[in-house]
């Protein structure tokens, strides 16, 4: 291989002689707003060895969002077809073009499907441009988690590119990479370069609901301030730029015209920054904003690389799906066009008028195929049907007198005679009867059947498959007609916490006001704490509406659990907890929730490891007594709401557990013995109606009955309980 004389005296770095190879790495995240990475190890920069081999790594993750519901109910978003090619293919093309050699993929929902797809794709083949394609499994629910996970795994050895799994771009990255490296060589604190595409004020691929605003120092390409302006809220249409920024820079660009596709070139320092800030979830609103704000503190700078030509976009919601499809068909993303046939087996050819047609298409003599149409193999179109601005998948059957305009029809769809479909998305295997009307913005998900003569009104979403939580939903005859299959799908708006991007999604497909594709995004995954092992499905009376709150509980519980497992001393755990509480401004209740969930998990863990319940409980609580003690502040008052709350949380946490009742008993006893909870609190707890609200709750506290009874007569007999516990 190439010349490799490593200048002996110049050799820097800790791992002397070990890391010779430069690697370009990339990270792709799927369902969140993603980062993907390319990097070459730093040694390359310093020792001046010229290497022709660009190695790369990237990590892929799934976008943790639900904007594509109901399609994403049972398929990962990056496998949804865009102009009949799965989204992920475009991302991989981009990475391959950029010369990335190692790719790390982070999958979100349905990552098994994604993994299967990738294993079967050409990217795994011997001729794949990627030396390494690693699918990393994690419980990540956000970009922040992915970054922290990456940091923990120590797989990133040099600069890397972070992208999301839905990026479509034909730009060569080397200019940005070279600029990044040059800057980094000059100043170690230049940790990240964001690649942004310049675009006019209005652009179809831009979000209509919020605009990112970058304040950039054009002389150094340094990003000084970042804010997102929400077009829906009246208050936020102004920027808050600190005086210092204005005073200390002679030139400032305030730009709102940039398309941000979350293509970031990062150094490994970025990962450690993410790790330091355990509460960051989103790469822009939180991480970028945070790092810029803390410039005084840590001196890290973030730069921008603004490109003026080439194509770059992200398919972040259905509106963008529409826009990017049009761009690809209109050859704006050349050479990423249907007739490039990215997938093996595709045989698209370009005809006049941006008509892409695969071999084996059957067109009736009298049908009219207009401009901007993609037709897949095996599709047949009946007499007097008109098709324009439409993407048709493979093996579709379009009847006679059908009118298709602006429709996205995936594979194996049957559309009956006389039906009109305008600006709607119809997923795989849907059957639409004769003389139906599918109005703009309607979404028909996998396997839906629509009976003859139905009208699917604007913006309706019909799904046939059970939703994520497993409740089978009966066919809704009103929605799909007699003999149809499917029900109207409503998004759980109430779960939505609008985080930076979520309302972007209400950017309605095709600008139709009634559609809200709003999503539960990054910070809102409803199951954060379930990672810790317990389902919180029926949580304490008090709401779990606040996404931030949940994040705190989740993060704190994870960190506490780690501490417990590694048997870190109580002060350290306590310190960490306090710092997290301060950062997130969390309430005492949340702190208790985090404590309970991590402690219980550790106890269960110990029990599974063969310890008796009593021993496990004592083990955990006696060592970390202090931690529990510091979360309750009602020792001196008459009412003991904090202690009761703690007990309730414990009860609740244990309710679904196997042997939960036993653990509860021992925990109650241990808390009493450690003088953490006083008798009065037990009484109040027992009396509290919440503690016996459901059967499960009643059951779990069954065994504890004896302890409470005993407490009542505690003065008299003390030792009897002791013995009883040993019998257990």
């Amino acid at each position, binding site marked *: *291989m190439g010349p490799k004389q490593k200048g002996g005296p110049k050799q820097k770095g800790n791992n002397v002689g070990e890391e010779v190879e430069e690697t*370009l790495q990339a990270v792709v995240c799927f369902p969140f707003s993603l980062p993907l990475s390319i990097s070459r190890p730093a040694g390359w920069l310093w020792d001046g060895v*010229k*290497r*022709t*081999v*660009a190695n790369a790594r990237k990590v892929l993750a799934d976008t943790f969002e639900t904007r594509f519901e109901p399609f994403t109910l049972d398929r990962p978003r990056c496998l949804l077809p865009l102009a009949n090619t799965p989204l992920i293919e475009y991302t991989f*093309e981009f990475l*391959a*073009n*950029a*010369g990335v*050699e190692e790719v790390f993929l982070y999958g979100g929902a349905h990552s098994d499907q994604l993994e299967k797809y990738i294993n079967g794709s*050409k990217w795994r*083949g*011997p*001729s*794949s*441009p*990627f*030396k*390494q394609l690693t699918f990393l499994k994690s419980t990540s629910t956000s970009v922040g988690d992915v970054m922290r996970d990456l940091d923990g795994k120590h797989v990133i050895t040099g600069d890397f590119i972070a992208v999301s799994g839905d990026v479509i771009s*034909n730009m*060569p*990255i*080397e*200019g940005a*990479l*070279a600029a990044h*490296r*040059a800057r980094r060589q000059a100043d170690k604190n230049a940790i990240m370069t964001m690649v942004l*595409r*310049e*675009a*006019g*004020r*209005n*652009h*179809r691929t*831009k979000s209509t609901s919020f605009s990112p605003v970058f304040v950039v120092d054009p002389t150094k390409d340094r990003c000084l301030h970042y804010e997102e302006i929400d077009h829906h809220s009246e208050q936020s249409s102004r920027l808050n730029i600190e005086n210092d920024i204005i005073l200390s820079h002679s030139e400032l660009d305030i730009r709102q*015209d940039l398309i941000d596709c979350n293509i970031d070139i990062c150094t490994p320092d970025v990962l450690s920054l993410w790790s330091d800030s355990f509460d960051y979830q989103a790469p822009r609103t939180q991480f970028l904003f945070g790092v810029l704000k803390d410039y005084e503190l840590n001196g890290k700078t973030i730069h921008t690389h603004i490109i003026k*030509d*080439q*194509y770059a976009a992200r398919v972040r919601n259905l509106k963008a799906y529409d826009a990017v499809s049009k*761009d690809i068909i*209109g*050859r*704006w993303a*050349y*050479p990423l066009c249907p007739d*490039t*046939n*990215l997938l093996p087996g595709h045989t698209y*050819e*370009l*005809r*006049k*008028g*941006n008509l892409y047609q695969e071999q084996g298409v059957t067109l009736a003599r009298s049908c009219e195929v207009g401009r*901007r149409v993609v037709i897949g193999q095996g599709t047949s179109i009946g007499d007097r049907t008109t098709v324009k601005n439409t993407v048709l998948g493979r093996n579709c059957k379009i009847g006679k007198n059908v009118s298709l305009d602006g429709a996205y029809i995936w594979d194996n769809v049957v559309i009956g005679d006389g039906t009109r479909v305008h600006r709607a998305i119809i997923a795989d295997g849907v059957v639409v009867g004769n003389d139906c009307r599918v109005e703009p913005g309607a979404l028909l998900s996998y396997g839906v059947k629509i009976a003859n003569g139905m009208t699917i009104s604007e913006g309706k979403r019909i799904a046939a498959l059970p939703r994520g939580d497993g409740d089978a939903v009966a066919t809704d005859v009103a929605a799909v007609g007699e003999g149809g299959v499917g029900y109207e799908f409503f998004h759980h708006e109430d779960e939505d916490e609008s985080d930076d991007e979520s309302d972007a999604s209400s950017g309605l497909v095709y600008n139709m006001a009634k559609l809200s594709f709003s999503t539960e995004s990054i910070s809102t995954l409803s199951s954060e704490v379930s990672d810790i092992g317990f389902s919180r499905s029926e949580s304490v009376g008090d709401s779990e509406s606040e996404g931030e709150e949940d994040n705190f509980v989740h993060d704190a519980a994870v960190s506490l659990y780690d501490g417990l497992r590694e048997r870190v001393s109580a002060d350290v755990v306590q310190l960490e907890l306090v710092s997290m509480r301060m950062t997130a401004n969390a309430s005492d209740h949340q702190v208790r929730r985090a404590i309970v969930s991590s402690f219980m998990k550790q106890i269960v863990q110990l029990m599974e490891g063969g310890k008796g319940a009593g021993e496990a409980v004592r083990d955990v609580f006696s060592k970390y007594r202090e931690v529990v003690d510091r979360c309750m502040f009602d020792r001196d008052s008459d009412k003991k709401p904090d202690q009761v709350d703690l007990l309730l949380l414990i009860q609740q946490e244990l309710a679904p557990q196997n042997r939960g009742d036993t653990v509860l008993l021992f925990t109650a006893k241990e808390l009493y013995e450690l003088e953490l909870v006083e008798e009065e609190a037990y009484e109040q707890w027992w009396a509290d109606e919440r503690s016996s609200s459901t059967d499960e709750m009643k059951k779990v506290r069954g065994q504890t009955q004896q302890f409470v009874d005993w407490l009542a007569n505690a003065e008299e007999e003390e030792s009897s309980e002791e013995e009883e516990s040993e019998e257990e």
Partner: protein
Amino acid sequence: MPSTALALTPGLASFLKSLKTNPIDTSIDNLISCASKYLPQYFFEIATDTVARLLKRRQIRHSRSCATATAYLLLRVISACRTTDAAKLIERVQSVGRRLVAAQPREMVVGNIVRRVLGLIRDEAEDDRDAEFALSEASESQPQTPRVTDDPSVPHERDTLSLRHEASERSSSRPPVASSTTTPISMFSLLSHPEPEPSLPGSPVSVSPSGRVLSHGPNKDVRAEVLDGIGEIIDELGQVDDQIAAYALDHIHSNEIILTHTSSTTVQRFLLKAAAKRKFTVIHAESYPNNHEATHATVSGNSGGDEEILSTESFQKPLIALGITVILIPDSAVFALMSRVNKVILGTHSVLANGGLVAAAGTRVIARAAKVHQTPVVVVSGVYKLSPVYPFDFESLIEYGDASKVVGYDDGDLVDQIDVQNPLYDYVPAELVDLYITNLGGHAPSYLYRIVSDHYRKEDISF
């Protein structure tokens, strides 16, 4: 630093470099993962995929780069092929060729090179058989040589004598191979084309990945001959511009006004050669939007480091350095100036069997304007660009490029409202061209069919 950064994006240069400088296991390490894990016989699959991918992504895009990449790839494929059976070789080359062509059907030179290699194999196989025939006539006891009668493409009904006759006729009428070996190699061309050296005929033996010496039996080894032949094709690709330029003085006269288009290196070389002896004026249309930057660079002489263009050209002196007046005009001014032009010299992307050509967008306008003014149109093109394809549907030969070169993508309103088409090529019908100059000399468009039949065997026209 910038040069290393550029090497990041895979392209022809990196591909060739890896093919040339490294043993087979690691040769395309930077393009392909885990090649080394696979046995050499799978190598060609990997390399084929790589080239196909480069073609698809348009990371290799000039005609000559495509041709060179294809030739090197086939060189590798054949040397990695352990069989000496001509039929198997043909099959393998065909399968590789089909994949390459499928990857970028509009890049016709790829198919041309594959056809020529197929022709080479067939010739060698037939020569071999002839020799064998003669040999077996002499000594009847030659047991071990099964004749290549299972070659599906060889018509069985013909007797061997006529076959031999035909083969010898063909080989004598195949000028490209002959000419590339017989043309005296000037000092200049030796210096300016150092890159094919490592794979010049003679060296393939050492290049062979398997490390086996390629002499198996006196009669059987078609491969060595074929490899030599491919080496000659690669040589030809390196020398073609100089060979064409040798005709320059016959066509360009003093004080003429020449109109040209695009940054074609063949045309530049042609004009430069004439400029050494004569003074004339060049009007250069800028070929906006797909090629104008390169054209500007060519005219002003500071071509940026486009790695795709072989490095020697970037050191070439511009015409103005030789005292030639060069006038750069927008494409729209072509018609207005045509009345003063004495001759139009055009480069091309590929030439079709009927004498029509597929060339950079804007060529047809120029050719038409020239026709109106009765100005002679001369097309300079290497023979390797001559394709046996007949343009029944010339629309399908035209590639459409990046729309954002015409209207900026940042103009959101326009992007949303209008369809933008950016054809990269034009089809120019044969009647608009007066003369073709190839490395074999000047031909009328109507004569091209003859050259086609000299270069490609009809079995291979659709392989």
